[in-house]
């Protein structure tokens, strides 16, 4: 069973690595977006799925990465791979600034602080026009790099999934899950809950930061409305919840299934998009809080590390 899974995984990775040599430009860009969603859903899972602290504003890190990378590429002429990594670092800095005051407390403070963060960043970005171009946006020099960005995006998705595997199978991950189940008990057992929550939060911000930078480079143009949309946060939450929060492959599964549906079916019902996502969130929370993968794990007695 485990062997078949690993072989299948290796085959899928090889196929994806060879894909750009065969696929069309459109296909490559679609897959690139899928990788982006996997990285985003998986990152949200790191903080919210593992510690139970809901982040309603994870798109803020995406936007932070996009603007950091955009400014470094557009104004300072950095090479895009370095600039995107710097975007990840900047997202971590932002996470530190928000996490420090908000994660010291139990309760919904963190969730609401994240809900407001996005709006505030959008306002600030629009305000400092000199640096960010304000509402007019920021254009990057043209560069046709879809294929390198495809690989970079794929690497980030693999890295975040690998990181999740390492965390879930480690003591650090067990402590995070203890916080999720009962924070007071976790403290009583001597876990420094604030530090653990903060580390998980910082790790969950890097991925979206790098991915934001890559998306900015790929699109070549960013503006406040395009990099801070609430729907991005909603989408990553839905994907992680649907696949199974707090698992390793759940967010990947959720991203693949929902992204495919989105491309094939929902693109025609764009107006119903959010309603549908809202309904999925409500239904998953009420009827299968562990997501598809959680249900499968229970039914077929699969190991926790799937």
């Amino acid at each position, binding site marked *: 069973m485990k062997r078949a899974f690993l072989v299948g995984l290796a085959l899928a990775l090889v196929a994806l690595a060879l894909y750009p040599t065969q696929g069309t430009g459109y296909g490559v860009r679609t897959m690139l977006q899928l990788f982006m969603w996997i990285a985003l859903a998986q990152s949200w899972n790191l903080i919210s799925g593992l510690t139970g602290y809901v982040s309603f504003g994870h798109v803020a890190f995406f936007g932070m990465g996009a603007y950091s990378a955009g400014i470094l590429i557009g104004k300072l002429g950095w090479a895009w791979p370095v600039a995107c990594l710097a975007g990840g670092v900047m997202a971590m800095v932002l996470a530190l600034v928000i996490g420090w005051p908000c994660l010291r407390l139990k*309760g919904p*403070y963190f969730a609401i602080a994240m809900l407001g963060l996005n709006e*505030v960043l959008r306002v600030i970005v629009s305000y400092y026009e000199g640096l960010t171009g304000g509402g007019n946006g920021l254009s990057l020099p043209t560069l046709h790099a879809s294929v390198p960005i495809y690989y970079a995006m794929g690497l980030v998705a693999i890295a975040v999934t690998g990181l999740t595997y390492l965390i879930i199978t480690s003591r650090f991950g067990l402590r995070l899950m203890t916080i999720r189940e009962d924070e007071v008990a976790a403290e009583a057992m001597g876990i420094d809950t604030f530090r653990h929550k903060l580390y998980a939060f910082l790790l969950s911000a890097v991925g979206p930061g790098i991915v934001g930078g890559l998306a900015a480079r790929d699109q070549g143009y960013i503006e406040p409305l395009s990099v801070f949309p609430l729907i991005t946060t909603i989408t990553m939450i839905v994907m992680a919840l649907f696949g199974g929060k707090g698992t390793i492959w759940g967010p990947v599964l959720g991203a693949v299934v929902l992204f495919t549906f989105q491309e094939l079916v929902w693109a025609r019902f764009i107006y119903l998009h*959010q309603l549908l996502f809202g309904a999925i969130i409500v239904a998953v929370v009420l009827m299968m809080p562990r997501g598809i993968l959680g249900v499968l794990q229970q039914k077929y007695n699969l190991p926790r590390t799937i």
Partner: protein
Amino acid sequence: MTPAITPAMVGQVVISGLLAGSLYAMVALGLGLIFGVMRVLNVAHGPMLMLGAYTTFWLFHWLGLSPYLSLLVSMPVLFVVGAVLQRLLVRRVVDAPELSSLLLTFGVSIAIVNLAQLMFTSDLRSVEYLTGSFILGPFAFSKSRVIACVVAILITAGAFWFLQKTRLGKALRAVSQSREVAQVCGINVQRIHMLAFGVASALAAAGGSLVAVMVAIQPEMGQVYTFKSFLVIVLGGAGNYPGALLGGLLLGLVEQLSSLFLTTQVNEAVAYILLVLVLLVRPTGLLKGRAS
């Protein structure tokens, strides 16, 4: 260059701040009630306010009903919506981990906003009613804001009277102090939860009806009120109902004062920085709350 700031301007800003703050206090009291009674943070509180604003708009648009009279419709309607929402969905996550109730109300919130977009479109609507200002010495106040403040104070006073003096109100406070003990005393906790959710949604609807006259109405107008109401609760101390009044007035003042020294654009950023500072320095709020 910013023009020099005169004492008259400061006075004007302080009074505007208090006018806006009384409205924040009323809306936040609703969010605080739900949080106090059920330990649920209702992310859909702001969208309830948006529904209240639309109720007022449509009544004004189709029947020409005065926005202030439409309170008599919007509040009962949203009371029912809130109570039904509690009965059907929120009831099931009251005892679940916080993550469930946050995600559930978040899902409800985006569904409501999207439904509003489908039914009412995203066009900006406005209620043209009671324009102009009262002039008092060097100060000028828009009539709609003054009346909104007076109505908000009356409704908030009514809510406090209900909480302090009536049997139901006392039962509600009892449940928010200790659910188990209240239950042992023979209070029907499920009914109180529904009541609290209904009253809270009615308070949000009142806020919506009152701001309908002042600002553009659109489906996404509500979300920012969820955030601001929460900020008010944190300022006043979570679970402390009179604290919400103080917090509301304070938020109104800080916002208006910041627009005097900075531009109005950064209003939301200032409110946000205030939240982060309060959480750093005094997480239990100004009046002592029951925050963990």
